[in-house]
Each structure stands twice: as structure tokens, then as C-alpha cells.
């Protein structure tokens, strides 16, 4: 569904990603793990057009999207729940979700049933239902994370990029986030998950990539990576 080949990207003259290639099959949950500064967020930003890749190919279902502006990439069915959540603080929770369906409401993506999808989000994220008319800026960090994920899902995306959904959350909320990710996986949502909690990410994922200094250092089925001595030593800590 999502195929990345020899992607090179960075900021200005600073090159962060050096020819990375990865593949996310339809219905799969793929995780991208790595230490801080390895280039995980940069990868997602290059995929969704928030930064312009220098070279390489990015395809969604065969269609090339590398170099397009982010609104055009979104119109091709890629949703990105970005680092730092980036919800619209001055819009209500519901209006944030409606903005997630902007392309569907304005005719650049199949409309489907937006109302039913809103109801589905409120069912998946009950806290958001309680705060439906509240301004997103008044939500707690955990609630904002739920909102960012729900807003991305409102696209009915072909591929969903999740950037560190657990970042800065209390342990209990981290658990909740991961349980939602598993539910989405069960619902066959195609996802690329970037995570700092490598162990938890490999637990839910089908396939994993390890990013080191902007290069793919290892990849394989999540089960195998979890038991790989080198990966364990570097990312999973002694306790695992």
C-alpha cells in the first residue's frame, strides 16, 4: 500500500535520511523504531509532504506522491497524526474531527458517511464524546492525543502515519493508546507507527524497521526483531 524507495530528506543542507526504503502492506501495522534523532519523525514528515524529499520515491497504492504538497498527499489517502499532536486549539473537538474529513466534505475524496464515522470515533474514544463541544486547546495531553488520532482517522485513510502517540503520556494512558492501536489493527487499518517504546510497538506490530542515523539498520517481522540480540541490546533494554 505504501512503498518507499531510496528516500533522501532533511532540513536545508542537513541531510537526515540517507536512502531509506520501506514497505507497508495493506492491512499491516508496521513500526519504525530507533533512538532519538535517528530520523523517525523526519521520515513521516517527508512521507506526508510536511518537508520536501530531496530524492527517492514514495508510492501509495502505486501512485507516486514524493514531492507533492501535503494537501495533495492527503487527498490521495495518506493521514498523518503528527508529532506534538497539532490539534486546532481554537476549534471544538467536533470541529477538529470535521476538519479531519475536510477532503471528504469538499469533494476531493469519496464522501462516505461522515456522520457515522463521527459516531464511530466517539465510540472508539469515549472521552472525546464527553468533550465534544469543548475547545481542543482545553483538553489534557492524553485527550489531545486521542483527538489527533481520531482526526487522522476521519480521512478514512489508505495509510495512517502515527508519530509517537505515547509521547509525554502517563503509563495508564500509554496503555490505552496501544490498546486503541491494536483495535485499529484488528479493523484492518494500514498503519506506520513511530514509537519510542520499542518493546510495546514490536508487541503490536506485524513488521518492524530499525532506523539508525538515518539509515535502515535492521528489519523483519516484529516477532523476529523482538528476539534479535542486537535489537534487544540497543532498543529493548536488559529487562526485556
Amino acid at each position, binding site marked *: 500500500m505504501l512503498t518507499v524507495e531510496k528516500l533522501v530528506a532533511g532540513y536545508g543542507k542537513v541531510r537526515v535520511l540517507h536512502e531509506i526504503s520501506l514497505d507497508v502492506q495493506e492491512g499491516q501495522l508496521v513500526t519504525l523504531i530507533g533512538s532519538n534523532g535517528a530520523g523517525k519523525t523526519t521520515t513521516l514528515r517527508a512521507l506526508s509532504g510536511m518537508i520536501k524529499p530531496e530524492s527517492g520515491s514514495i508510492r501509495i497504492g502505486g501512485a507516486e506522491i514524493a514531492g507533492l504538497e501535503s*494537501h495533495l498527499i*492527503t487527498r490521495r489517502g495518506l493521514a498523518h497524526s*503528527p508529532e506534538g499532536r497539532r490539534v486546532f486549539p481554537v*476549534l471544538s473537538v467536533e470541529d477538529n474531527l470535521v476538519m479531519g474529513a475536510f477532503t471528504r466534505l469538499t469533494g476531493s475524496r469519496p464522501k462516505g458517511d461522515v456522520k457515522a464515522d463521527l459516531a464511530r470515533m466517539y465510540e472508539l474514544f469515549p472521552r472525546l464524546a464527553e468533550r465534544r463541544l469543548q475547545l481542543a486547546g482545553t483538553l489534557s495531553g492524553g485527550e489531545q492525543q486521542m483527538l489527533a488520532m481520531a482526526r487522522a482517522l476521519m480521512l478514512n485513510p489508505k495509510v495512517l502515519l502515527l508519530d509517537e502517540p505515547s509521547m509525554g503520556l502517563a503509563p495508564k494512558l500509554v496503555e490505552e493508546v496501544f490498546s486503541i492501536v491494536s483495535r485499529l489493527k484488528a479493523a484492518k487499518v494500514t498503519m506506520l507507527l513511530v514509537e519510542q517504546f520499542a518493546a510495546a510497538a514490536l508487541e503490536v506490530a506485524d513488521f518492524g524497521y530499525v532506523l539508525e542515523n538515518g539509515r535502515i539498520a535492521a528489519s523483519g517481522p516484529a516477532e523476529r526483531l523482538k528476539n534479535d540480540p542486537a535489537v534487544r541490546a540497543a532498543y529493548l533494554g536488559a529487562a526485556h
Partner: protein
Amino acid sequence: MFDFQTFIQLVVSGISVGMIYGVVAFGYQLTFATSRTLNFGQGEALMLGSLAGFTIMTQLASHLGIPMPLAYLLMLPLVLMFGMAQGAVVEWLGVRQAIKTKSEAGWIMATIALGIIFKNLAENIWGRDTFTFPAPLPDAAIQIGGIRILPMEVLIVCGALALMAAVELFNRRSIYGKAVVATSADIGAAGLMGVNTAQVITLSYALSSLTAAFAGVLVAPVTLTGASLGSALGLKAFAVAIIGGLTSGVGVVVGGVLLGITDRLTGYYISTGYQDVPGLVLLLLVLSFKPSGLFGKSAIKKV
């Protein structure tokens, strides 16, 4: 001796001038919200709108024999469209490139330059003379307890409030309005929603010039119109936008009315020569003590 009735009379006429400042200041806010840039040719947009309105009205009246109040109503949508087109041109020629290259000052010079060009253009088309703008409403003042209020002054206040309410309604209710609000809040995240944010910025410039053109045809019947109408009003409105805050809708109304009233009071009680001073002193005070404006949330650039 202090004459209370005169005082109230001045306040009333100050309010209507102030609403004009407020509407134009509101236009400054529209582009600032989406792009953190301002159209310094806003005053010229007002002037062009009023002169275009003048020409449309006189043509309608002389060629088709349409009576003035009706001609005014027919002219309004045309002038609003003209304003939108003019604003889109400003964004296209002066601002887009500066935003693309992340130029800090490019848009300032470009919008000032375009303002000067528009003024010269107007001087060549309409000359340097002033014209009496045909009034859509009777000149006879309404008397309320000894205070004289011109029907046109009432129209200015109502029209200004209606326009701002319409834009607010658009922002809150329509999906495109929400896209504008989203772009103002976080342009990168709005792009991820599939919003063409460059188009939103063009739209905000179009709406901004629309408000200016509207202000132009509101104010012209009580002043005069001409190629020099814009400069002073544009500058005053800019002061209002800073005093009220570049992010507050209430701020521009209050700031505009405040400035309109102090103008009139100073002009009458002190001297018309000092008419502009209190407003500008207020501007300086706001800039030193509350730079985000009396009603604004912090608009200061974080370093």
C-alpha cells in the same frame, strides 16, 4: 461653557467614523490570521472600492435612469467582487512569493509599493479631484433628544457590524470557514487535513480587500471620494488594529470607536490640527505597555 449636547453629538459622529476604522482594521486582521502578513495597501483598497462604486453608481443612474438608493444596492455586490479581485491580485503579486521564500520584509515593501501603484492608477483614471459620492439615504438628520444623527451614519454602523458578523458566521459554520480558522491556528496541520493553505491565504487577502472596498462605499457618502481618500484612513485603521490587537474582533470595534471619538473630541475642543495626535499617542502607549493590543492575545514573535 461645556455644552453636553455638543459633546454627545461629537461622540455619535465619532462612533460612525470609528466603525469605518474598525472595518478596515478587521481587514488587516484577516490576512494576519492566516499568513502573519498585512496588506499595507489596505487604505488604497478602500479608495479603489469607493471610486469603483462611484463610477458604477453614476453609470447606472445616468444610462439606465436607476434611482440612487437602488443604484447603491445594485452597486454593492459589484464593488464587493471588485474588492475580492483586487485583494487576490495583491496577494498574488506581492505576498505569495515573500511567503514562499520566507522573506521577513518582502511583503511589507511589496504591499506598500502596490498601494502606491494603485493610488497612481486611480489618479490617472479619476484625476486628483474629489467627488461627492451620491448618497443612498436622505441627507436630513434624524433628531433624537436634540442629537442629530445622519441616516448614513446609522447605515455605516449597521453595515460594518453586519459585515463582521457575516465573516464570523462563515468561519464558524461553513467547512471552508473552519479551514480558514484551522489555517490560522496551525498552517502545517491544516495542510495535513487536505486544506490548500496557499489558496486560503489568497482568500483571506480577497476578503480583506472586500472589507476595505465595503468600508469605502460606506464612508464615501459622508466624506468625499477621490484618489487621496485611502492613505489617512488606512493608517488610522492600522493604528486601530494595533491598539485593539491583531487577533481580536472585539478589539477592532472598541479600538476603532475609541479612536473615532477621540479624533472628533480633539478636533472640536482643541484644534483640528491636533486631531490625529491622541490616537497616535494611544498607539505609542499600547505599543510600550501592551504590545499585543488591548484585547489581543500575545502576537509577539517568539524568539
